[in-house]
């Protein structure tokens, strides 16, 4: 390690004193947990290193920018507008290194826990200003005029025109002004947002990539509420628990007693197996769902799944 880089690091300690000198994603060396002096100053630091937790949420983006979709990028740009300097990069490396232990999203509020250098993780809250019922009424009426908005949202995509609809009503989906947003972290850093908040921000961006409805939720409208607001349609019940819909019991079927049905059964239609081949696009069904929310595994989710699906395909062919 060069003297220069050592120096450079030290120069940052003031805004970062609680867990000094812990992680620079552009530095490669792992620092030992021992103490060391600095030149002839005879100055020893009781150096504290961030605690690396196991099983934290790991960002799926391995390098570069966070957020693949325009709406996730918009979310990040909000964070960037606070000009918190190097904290932004440290937030990134926190997000990638699994320092964030949990994130819970509720209407208007996000709660998260992030592991820093103290034994107890820091507690973070991010609050967004919820839009009132009247505002939502206006918005859903406007959204209902074109089926494409709801359809795209449900398919995991946010049409850019949605922003305009918010604007037309004098509202905004993304937090624009400081008063739209209230962030808090229990760390001693005076800066708000701190790098812990930034880390949560980055991970949220990945979630928004997958499910743009979360942004609506943060503004106070759940997915089911949006569909209900769009209009009355036949078969109105929306199950809030997906479970019951998927596992709906079929009506009982009594056993036949005559020999043909009882022993022999019906004749099998032709082509009952369907197409038998390895699909051209691997794991297509899974890719429609996207990444698993707040993935904590050591392996990258999509890579692990890709390999399982392609091996399983071959196994399936063997069972024919």
């Amino acid at each position, binding site marked *: 390690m060069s003297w220069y880089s050592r120096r450079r690091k030290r120069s940052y300690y003031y805004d970062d004193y609680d867990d000094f000198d812990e992680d620079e994603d552009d530095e490669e060396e792992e620092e030992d947990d021992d103490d060391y002096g600095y030149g002839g100053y005879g100055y020893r630091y009781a150096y504290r290193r961030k605690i690396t937790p196991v099983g934290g949420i790991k960002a799926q983006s391995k390098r570069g920018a966070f957020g693949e979709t325009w709406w996730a990028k918009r979310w990040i740009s909000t964070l960037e507008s606070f000009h918190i300097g190097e904290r932004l990069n440290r937030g990134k490396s926190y997000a990638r290194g699994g320092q964030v232990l949990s994130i819970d999203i509720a209407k208007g509020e996000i709660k998260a826990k992030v592991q820093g250098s103290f034994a107890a993780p820091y507690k973070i809250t991010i609050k967004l200003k919820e839009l009132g019922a009247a505002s939502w009424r206006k918005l859903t009426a406007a959204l209902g005029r074109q089926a494409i908005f709801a359809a795209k949202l449900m398919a995991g995509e946010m049409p850019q025109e949605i922003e305009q609809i918010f604007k037309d009503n004098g509202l905004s989906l993304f937090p624009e002004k400081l008063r739209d947003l209230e962030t808090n972290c229990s760390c001693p850093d005076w800066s708000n947002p701190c790098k812990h908040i930034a880390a949560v921000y980055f991970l949220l961006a990945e979630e928004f990539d997958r499910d743009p409805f979360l942004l609506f939720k943060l503004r106070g409208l759940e997915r089911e509420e949006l569909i209900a607001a769009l209009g009355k349609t036949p078969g109105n019940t929306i199950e809030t628990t997906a479970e019951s819909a998927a596992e709906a019991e079929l009506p009982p079927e009594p056993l036949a*007693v005559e020999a043909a049905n009882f*022993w022999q059964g019906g004749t099998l239609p032709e082509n009952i197996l369907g197409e038998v081949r390895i699909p051209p696009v691997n794991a297509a069904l899974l890719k429609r769902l996207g990444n698993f929310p707040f993935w904590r595994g050591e392996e990258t989710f999509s890579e692990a799944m890709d390999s399982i699906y392609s091996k399983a395909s071959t196994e399936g062919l063997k069972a024919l």
Partner: protein
Amino acid sequence: MIILHAGFQEKHLLLWGETAPSEAETKTKPARASQKKSAKPAKLIYDLGDDGLLSALSELFSGIEIEKSEFEKVTVWLPTVDGQVLASNVLIAEPPESKSPPTLAPWTVTALPMATVEAIELLSLCVDKAMLSPGVIVGWDLAFWATAMRFAGAMTARQQFLPSVVKEDGAYHARWLPVFVGQDAERLQKLAQAMPHVCRAMSADSAIPPTIAAASLLSEFVGLIVDHLARVDREHQTKSKNSFNSLHDQWLNALRTMSSELTGKESELSQFAAQSRNWRRPIEITTSSPFRLSFRLEEPAESKQETAKSLSRAATASKNGWHVRYLLQAADDPSLLIDVADAWNAKAKKSKILQRPNFNAREYLLSSLGLAASINPQIEQSLKSSEPAGYELDATGAFDFLQEKAWLLEQSGFNVLLPAWWTRKGTKLRLSARANVKSPKLQGGGSLSLNEIIKFNYQIALGDEVLTLKELEELAKLKMPLVKIRGQWVQLSAEEIQTAIEFWKKKATGKASVRQLVHMSLGVGGATKSVKGIAFEGVNADGWIGDLLAQLDGRKAFKELQPTEKFSGTLRPYQTRGYSWLSFLSEIGFGACLADDMGLGKTVQTLALIQRDWQANDAKNRRPVLLVCPMSVMGNWQKEAARFTPNLPVMIHHGLTRAKGAAFRKEAARQALVISSYSLLHRDLGILEGVNWQGVILDEAQNIKNAETKQSKAARSLKSDYRIALTGTPVENNVGDLWSVMEFLNPGFLGTQAEFKRNFFLPIQTQRDEQATAQLKRLTSPFILRRLKTDKTIINDLPEKMEMKTFCNLTKEQASLYAAVAEDAGKSLEESEGIQRKGLVLATLMKLKQVCNHPAQFLGDNSAIPGRSGKLARLTEMLEEVLSANERALVFTQFTEMGDIIQRHLQETFGHEVLFLHGGVTKKNRDRMVERFQRNTAGSPQIFILSLKAGGTGLNLTAANHVFHFDRWWNPAVENQATDRAFRIGQQRNVQVHKFLCAGTLEEKIDEMIERKSEIASSIVGAGEGWLTELSTKELKSLFALRADAIGE
């Protein structure tokens, strides 16, 4: 006889079985269904039990070990009458006679719960099989599970599954869930409808019968198999749970390995389960939907001006006006289609149909349309209205929809309804190129050469109409991908027309050998798939090449030949045609497969061909024909050759004393026909390959249906001018077996085996691809001739009753027993006279006949049946053909013991019930047997064994059109009377009578004696076999002696 069954309960396939109870068991009063609800149900009297299951399984999996404790007593609800359970099959037990209707009652059976991996192994063996091993029948329910397993395999192969977290019995598990979307959902429904109810007849409760829905049980089963197959690291050691850094790591591991359980805090796990459900939600909205979004492409409304003469004017009819309509199709009734326009509005009348529990039409429509929009920009465009229900498109758009978008939508699980004139490969009518060949008429006496090089030019056609350049240019001006020409939609690509025009202007011509032209005309192995981008359709030829092509595909009759004078026999008209056809193909060097029904005389037609070739060549140019057949028919070939072509030198290449090396070559060179067997084909390949055969003929060619076997490879490696395959089973119906036979006949015609699998086998077998089926038929039909007895043209040629002798060989065991008996008798004969001598002769006759029938009959020791009798082997082969043609047969024997042996053997081989009428059968049972046999419906017995005494007279058994005389009663009158059970008033078909004889034994010799003295036979022979005792000792000794040609091994 055993029938294996399987139920499915609590994630396990439970194997159980039925078997006929031993006599001791039947004598004790049969168990009755318990009346008291609380009592444990009575044991099923047909229960196979743990020993039975174990021995059946160890037949299949050698070295299998199962602890007694693994078996369970399970309650199964079965149809029961008056407290007596009904067996699944009469092979187990006849249904009791009762007028009361059956009801369901609980019974206790011994079942083996199988681990998923074991179940997969067992079910894989059951695929498409009626019998697992002799005497072990695959029950319909077990066969059903095998199909369900293959369905799960196909689902896994196409990756229709997602990972999940599921709570089972209080614990959380990582599971792979099959995703039934689109057609898979339909398939699941259809499969469930076909499920035999016994599959779900197991219950934990013996008070009320189970009522679980078939679809629930089936999807649970499919889920189990998919979950198993997707665990790709099954072999891996499971890691200790503590070694995971997160629940997600643990989950991933639990999805890959066999240990699916997740550990951790309940609250954390339940939250995780909910999260995983939410994550899958976008797809579950679709899978749980009782309706399916469908897209229907609708043609423009008919225009009035259809009569225009010019192609282009007729075609300009409509450019716009196409429409894609959005519809909701009910999953449980695919014919129910609701316009999406009605679905948006809760007040619309039709929307009532959409009222289903847990279904929100708007949510489903929005999310489905959102997905469809990402596939098709026009759908996206249509979503800019509040209640989209379809969109308009022009001809270009319609073509794009047909060609690409429809497929993409289908792949994403949507249903697409396309006009009938569209096939997967395009419009039925297409622009095509064909080769136009002009050749002179063949002058008499000139011979054709397939190697002659011929010039031809190309033509462009639309269907049957050849287009002029001007017409092509008109079409090019339209610039439309889809045009309606004379009421039919045709796809035209501008590029295609342009290349056609350019091609034309260059005066496209080509050169090819006649053989290549034949290939081009049939479309052999992609000989010419396209000409400069235009689909190649075939060859248009006149002159002799035209004749040749027309003869090949049956548009024109080939020259009919008469058998040569030296052929001693007459051919029926259809046999003359068959013989001429064989000559025609063999002369031009193509292989032919004669697949006539059994009994139509494949042998004579073949012999006529061999005789003709022999005479056509002068002595110097004569070369032998090699005939390969199963051992069981070698004797028959030899006999038939002696009868029809007595002047041809014939050699049997068989047995330990057969010629080898140079001696064989020298010997074979002198023959017209060398007969050998499949087993020697491979073993003696070295010397067989050394001969340049005139022809190679495979009899019972289904023996080479598997291309990988040594004998198939050996058959393909023989050198000859022509090749012929004979078979009585319809090879053309079994796509899988076709390649090997065709590769022997005409190498390369169907491409390599891998190409064949890709181009024909998979499309036909798994997708019922009509085009592939038609193409395969076009390729093979010139080389397969199959006539059925029932064909109108054949039936008139046939006598109503055909009597044929079937010569069989003895096995080594039979031969040595035979020799011992004969030697014994020879000694005693010298020392006896009078009544004693008479008795001795008759006893010896009896013993020898028994030996010819089966060693087990002679020994009377209840020993093993298969592989010990030449006659029984031949009978089994012939009956297999009878069964595969769905016909019925009578088998007569004079020995009750032999009848028992035949019945047992046939039932264990075919797994079908075989009736046996003998002196011990009561009148009531006899009438019932006759009634069931005569019922002549699917499922009623097809084979009826009768003892000559009990069944020789009186009965009316016209459902049969085959009569087998397994052993002979040397009295034609008695045999004819028996034959007349089938051949009598009421018989609609021709009857074939097969008389079995062991070659080289007394059976053949007595037959010869009767034939020789046919005029006196009826008087001398009189009743029975008494006249034989009048023969001199010398005559008798020669009668009993075994000729060398008797042994078949």
